[in-house]
């Protein structure tokens, strides 16, 4: 192509011919890492997204660029997406709460009634 760009940086490149075939090989963009962001000391790390990186050290560097460049951030974790173990989403119903579980809930214990009844009987 004629190398006449308005961008001086582009004019410094030696661009290939139009129609030239460039292909990226599968896997060339590395592995995927999940990123967890901590907003302040003492807070939980929260999942914020992913980065592509060749190893965990660089994943941290990319995560800092991608998720630490604005809001407050004091720490980041990265972990390979392939290492995350999760329940199957289809099994969501296993978390359905049994309404009969009042025995493990504060609201399941009503002491005031008894206290009042006891006081009245005095």
């Amino acid at each position, binding site marked *: 192509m004629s190398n006449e*760009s*308005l961008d001086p940086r582009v004019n410094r*490149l030696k661009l*290939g011919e139009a129609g030239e075939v*460039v292909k990226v090989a599968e896997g*060339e*963009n590395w592995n995927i890492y999940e990123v967890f962001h901590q907003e302040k000391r003492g807070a939980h790390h929260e999942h914020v997204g992913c980065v592509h990186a*060749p190893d965990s050290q660089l994943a941290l560097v990319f995560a800092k660029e991608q998720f630490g*460049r604005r809001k407050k951030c004091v720490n980041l974790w990265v972990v390979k997406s392939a290492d995350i173990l999760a329940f199957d989403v289809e099994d969501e119903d296993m978390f359905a709460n049994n309404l009969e579980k009042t025995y493990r809930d504060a609201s399941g214990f009503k002491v005031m009634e008894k206290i009042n009844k006891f006081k009245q009987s005095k």
Partner: protein
Amino acid sequence: MYGGGYIFDEPNKKQLREEEQHDEPEKLAAFEERIARGEKIESGDWMPAEYRRQLIRLIEQHAHSEVIGALPEGTWITRAPGFKRKLALIAKVQDEIGHGQLLYNAAETLGKSREAMINDLLSGKSKYSNVFNYPAETWADVAVIGFLIDAAAIVNQVANAKGSYGPYCRALERICYEESFHLKQGHDAFIELATGTLAQREMLQDALNRWWQPIMHFFGPPDKVSSHSEKLMQWKVKMASNDDMRNQFLDAYVPKIWELGLTLPDPALRKNEATGRWEYTDPDWDEFFRVINGGGPCNAERLQVRKWAEEHGRWVRQALMQPAERKAFPVA
């Protein structure tokens, strides 16, 4: 920045196999009920093949638009007027590339690899927002892009963030938060020229005149000719029609342009107070399709720059892939 309303679809797309078109009716009914209730769909959930295909198409082209969109603005980094403008422009361009990464990741959750998406971009199979096939001729073009194209993109993205696919919504939430800075710095640069010297105002007016048609194109062809919308709206992939989004944009931003004494190159542009809709001359849609199909002033340059980056970055990616094979320096 840059989710246009118009998402290119391959003209002779492979027809889905019969069983894919009518995937299991019970599951489909349950899926559509979930969406109607306002639930989000996540990557591991069952979804119709067509929903997956359309989402990949939408999110992938949104991602390409972010990355290619950095090029016209990047043109002016070396010559930004002043240190603060240069810092802001570099920060914005970095954000756009970051948005591209977030969106590629969202699309990857649907099963298409980032490499495959990049290859489709480089081969011309997959498109990006048409506005970036036009050149940024002066600094005023950067102000117009930062103010008005970002504003148009925000209208689109705020709508899409209420869509049905969880990973896309989460990416858009983060993107919209950062876009608010893009819009504000663009508006600031725009106002500075609009309230400046005669030469500055003339430069801005010239940029507005050249960008108005691409901006009107941004939301895509009018509803009366736009295909495959109904199902996508029911599935909450598309959240508003092209004309509705265009109208929302005109309503919010035309007054902000006119109040500065600037004009827009369409004598028919006016708001019909009775209907609440804006009236305008239909932009040249033949031009729109000509540019999308490769005939714009910058299509070739944009793709050649992306190919250059992929080719010249390859040795870095490969070297990093094999950390054991480091060059050893002599110790003595």
